[in-house]
């Protein structure tokens, strides 16, 4: 439990969401009903460049799909993982090798080994959190549907945030 909380730091999450431009999504599916597609669609809609990483896909959300992180011919800021937890360590290795700045593991993707690899490689790590939900919580419209964002503020929202 404490191990996971260590990888759910609000400040880290905000920094990643605010600074990232290019997000490689490992396991992104072209099936519009898959959770990965919901997240990819949402992040793309909010201005991030999505890079599908899935050997079983050719193109997802209008972007060319790569078989592995190492095949992406341009820099990637965040590696977002939709894979079984035991598949994470080699993905973390690759994320370090390609110079990504953060490794993000989605809900139920929990790998302390993968997290340690990424951290030792200098990456920020987020675990068992959804990138869509965290974006919606901190800078999106999640509060419009009655979800508990945990955000308490008396500051006026910027219109651009919407």
């Amino acid at each position, binding site marked *: 439990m404490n191990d996971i909380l260590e990888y759910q730091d*609000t400040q880290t999450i905000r920094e990643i969401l605010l600074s990232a431009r290019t997000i490689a999504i490992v396991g992104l599916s072209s099936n519009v009903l898959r959770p990965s597609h919901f997240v990819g669609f949402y992040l793309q809609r909010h201005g991030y460049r999505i890079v599908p990483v899935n050997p079983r896909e050719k193109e997802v959300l209008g972007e060319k799909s790569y078989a592995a992180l190492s095949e992406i011919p341009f820099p990637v800021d965040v590696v977002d993982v939709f894979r079984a937890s035991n598949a994470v360590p080699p993905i973390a290795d690759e994320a370090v090798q390609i110079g990504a700045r953060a490794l993000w593991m989605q809900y139920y993707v929990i790998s302390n080994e993968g997290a340690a690899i990424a951290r030792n490689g200098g990456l920020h790590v987020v675990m068992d959190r959804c990138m869509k939900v965290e974006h919606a919580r901190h800078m999106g419209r999640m509060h419009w*549907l009655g979800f*508990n964002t*945990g955000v308490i503020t008396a500051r006026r929202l910027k219109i651009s945030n919407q």
Partner: protein
Amino acid sequence: MANSNPPQADDLHQFGFDTRAIHAGQRPDPYTGARAVPIFQTTSYVFEDADSAAAYFNLQEYGNTYSRIMNPTVAVFEERVASLEGGAGAVGFASGLAAQAASFFTMLRPGDHVVASKALYGGTITQLKHLFGKLSVDHTFIDPDDIANWKNALRDNTKAFFGETIGNPGGNILDIEAVANIAHAHNLPLIIDSTFATPYLCRPMEWGADIVVHSATKFIGGHGTSIGGVVTEAGTFNWSNGRFPGVADPSAAYHGLAFHETFGVYGYLMKLRAESLRDLGGAMSPFNAFLFLLGLETLPLRMERHVKNTLEIAQFLENHPMVERVKYSGLESSPYASLAKKYLPRGAGAVFSFDLKGGRGAGKNFIEALNLWSHLANVGDAKSLVIHPASTTHRQLNDAELAGAGITPGTIRLSVGLENAEDLIWDLERGLRASAVRESSRIYANDKINEKISED
């Protein structure tokens, strides 16, 4: 999946209950800077473009489409309740019963079975027995005090446990932790109606409850102005355990979307909103949400006074010769005193009942002699309220069900308000004196008064 942590409040600082009662859910309006929560009295919302509209309807983006499903004023109320209860989110409804019905509809199918306390609000018993009975959902009402009863009532098709934090009107305190443990051991959720406790006095999710429903009409609103309800869910129950195809399986009503897998901890709540609220249609009005938000801002202050007055009045009644017994778990003499200390350390609520000596006739005399207490069918107002359950709120129940709910013909239920306690006690004294007068002489006295009025 069940191991996944629901999101917690901002890691940087944990804000206190009173602060969240005032601020949670609201971000000052980006366009106007309005400090109060604006009332968005609108049915519908202009889309930015066709793609956005499609994304909203596909649930790919959080957006406003139609106020039967979501509304920005109602959303502030929903998030605030979720924050106070410690839930992943909440959905507002037109009434407490609408909220409760939707919480069941979202998870149950024909052929399912619910185990519920028999010490419940009469409307809830009617809803489970007749409305859900008509939908082929079976139920067993049990004495909630004996924990073994919950386990013994389990069947293969049991899909939920249901109880009230503080039973209405018997004042039973539910051993939430023990009941939740049995529910979870059998892969089913515990639903709690916590209307009488409010999140200020008890937060059932901290003891393992999965879903908490409220009639916001009562202490949340607090001023007797508006009807409304709310469902909040912890987000920790594993709806994908194979027993809840209604929540986990691809939804035919949403082009094959698997709500729990897709939305994780928010899956049940999304389904509750996007299907149950959308299709049953019991949406909360934005104006009512605004009034409930005003109520929540002072909830901690009001509940403090409510329970202080209530304890004083319960102690007064307990020592009165015309009173047979007082059923308030805040009293040391209550069989629920130890459970109340565990689950309701700040006070055992402001609704309780007592039995008059003299039965039904004495009850009628008592109520009719009161001047300050309002005789009506509601609880949780700033004003003190009184009712005779056997002839009103629990009228649809037969004698056995009445006894099961802890009601006798002479039971009087009080909802203690925020007036000066000494004034409330002064009025109760008058009622108790009247209750001691024999039925025949009272009628005679009334006739004399009426004669005098007509002479005047």
